[in-house]
């Protein structure tokens, strides 16, 4: 595989290395995935004679949702700082920031679980009405993306970190594309939060 060009160096015409372009295109497909789900929500809500979700929507836990928004935004900042630390060749600073990102992601999931637990204990299940169905599907799929991010970040912090000593440039690139993905996960939540909690 060492013969494939532009795995670490940038292509002179596009200014990108392969991985970065790949992640951008992957994110484009993710936009279509979440776009279809958001459209579903709009389609069902606009088309409904009697939107049963109003009261349920008001019953969502707004404080937890707000805190979680800030948790994710903060994690987006730490992931950039971790990449910036690698550019400065400061590996221990990188580990602190990258570790903070994964900790914040876990914190987000804990808050989310509390919220789910509250819903279930009030017998609010996806089958109750279409608002709850959308709520659980969208937040559930988003949570899966967060878990995916935690797995990747965990790998890069743990066994994957060896690469820093052998191929520092390539490792920095990996952190960058992980960061791109993580920003996207954050961005999805930025759209989810007002759509589900505020509108």
């Amino acid at each position, binding site marked *: 595989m060492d013969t494939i060009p532009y795995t670490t160096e940038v292509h002179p015409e596009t200014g990108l290395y392969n991985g970065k372009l790949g992640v951008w295109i992957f994110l484009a497909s993710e936009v279509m995935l979440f776009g*279809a789900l958001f459209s579903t929500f709009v389609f069902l809500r606009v088309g409904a004679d009697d939107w049963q979700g109003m009261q349920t929507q008001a019953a969502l836990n707004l404080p937890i949702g707000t805190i979680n928004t800030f948790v994710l935004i903060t994690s987006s900042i730490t992931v950039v700082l971790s990449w910036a630390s690698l550019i400065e060749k400061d590996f221990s600073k990188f580990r602190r920031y990258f570790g903070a990102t994964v900790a914040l992601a876990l914190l987000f999931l804990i808050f989310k679980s509390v919220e789910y637990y509250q819903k279930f204990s009030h017998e609010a299940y*996806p089958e109750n009405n279409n608002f709850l*169905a959308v709520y659980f599907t969208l937040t559930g799929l988003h949570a899966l993306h967060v878990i995916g991010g935690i797995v990747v970040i965990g790998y890069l912090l743990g066994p994957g970190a060896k690469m820093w000593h052998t191929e520092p440039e390539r490792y920095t690139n990996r952190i960058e594309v992980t960061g791109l993905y993580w920003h996207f996960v954050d961005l999805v939540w930025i759209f989810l939060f007002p759509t589900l909690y505020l509108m």
Partner: protein
Amino acid sequence: MPIEKHGHDHPKLSWWRTYVFATDHKTIGIQYGLTAMFFMFFGFGLMLLMRWQLAYSGKPVPLLGRLFGEDSAFFPDGIVMPEMYNQLGAMHGTIMVFMAIVPIVVGAFGNYMVPLQIGAPDRAFPRLNMARYWCYLVGGVIMLASFFAPGGAASSGWTSYAPLSVIATSGQTYWLIGMIGLITSSLLGGINFIVTIIQLRAKGLTFMRLPFFVWTQFVTAFLLVLAFPPLEAAAVLQLMDRLFDTSYFLPSGLVISGEILNVAGGGSALLWQHLFWFLAHPEVYVLILPPFGIVAEVIANNTRRPLWGYRSMVYSLVFLGFMSFVVWAHHMYLTGMGTALSAFFQTTTMIISIPSVVILTALVISLWGASIRFTVPMLFALAFLPMFAIGGLTGLPLGLNMPDIALHDTYYVIGHFHYVVAPGSTFGIFAGLYYWFPKITGRKMNETLGKLHFWPTLLFMNCVFMPMMIQGFAGVSRRLYDGGASYAHAQDVLYLNKFMTHSAFGLAFVQLFFIVNLFWSMKYGAKVSRNPWDGTSLEWAAPSPPLPHVNFESLPVAHRGPYEYSVPGENEDFTPQFQADKES
């Protein structure tokens, strides 16, 4: 800077890494080809059972009856029961579209030929490429396993229209999970293709010097990346409906078997159709664009002249890809979505026919006045043109919403899209296989067996699909278990059922020539040099078969466009892209 190291210095990989968990795009391409060809023949087999039932309703299928015995719920003594017929229909469509044609044109041909044609050592992400094949295989196996589910395989058609599919037996859940595997595979492949074509083109190979086949793969990859996620979303929603009792696709007050279904309701069956067709219409172009590319390559090579209007073909292709995202609801004229929407989608549908006609016309004009070499790949490519034209032109009445009222869901529709996909895409696939077989194996396929394969295939294809148009005009609906025997208006065209069935079995029989030729030629075919067809694009610079993992002895450089045939003043009638300019 690309690394200038082209190794014969690779450590020898273990058997598992070489043949099973391979990262070499060529091995993966062959894995894809063989797997998809198996699925294709399996899907063809399902269709033969259906055709048997349509011609000999209620009679046991010969030979198979003994295999299943009288205890079989759906297939007692080899008699196709109605539930069985529905499963066959749904699975035939699913297998052919998602597990056979797309994997062959993109997974096999795209994987194998694109890196060669752009002069790259491999795809941009070899391990992603491997993951992609395994997602596909797992998805495919789950699909096939659904035949053993209680209640049998999915039986709501390949479109899985809600609410029927939501209340169907557990085979549908297998279908959805299998689908998620297949979609993920296509997504990973699409990303890989785009990055490979943008980043790994050989030196000097600008976009307007790309062979048309690479262009078709490029546009196809965008369709895969952008159109598949909505179906993935739809599959997730339908899984929620089936497993967690939500009602995305279940309207309020839905009555099933005389009882109101006990769900929250408030969903919409139309929502499924919108999400499904938003994928499935671009999917149609995924089926046909790469065969366009193959046919263009074969035609340029065998007419010994440049493609006529290469640039306008490329622009049409890109426009086609873009437009394919805004025509999906022409599948839904009869759903009551409203006349305004119908008018919009009717307009876009008429617009999208223009670039297809441009491409097809350019290919036909390329033939004008050429001294054509009638090789086997060329025969298939030539037959592709009128066959696809029939498929395309019969689509126009369906794209206009007035005639569609009469023709919707009849055998006319079946005839139309099978002309596009069966003698269309499949002929493209055969052309590509006969054309590139020497590059893949280093041996040529047998010409005589090839012609024995081609002529009866062309004949039988038409005998199978042309009568469907006639039945469709008579108003025979698709998905009828008895082929219309119990309908008064179908009586005059019933005799065609036997004719089509016999032709289908004939079609199956003549494929034996192909299968024998394929395996015989792998071992005993005439050995060839690296450029047996006197081709011009970069794949002919590589040895046949190309070197493992690096393809070329040294990465080629493109000096000119892809179709420099019969250039005046040259000694040969072809000037390859990789041939350096003469010192003057």
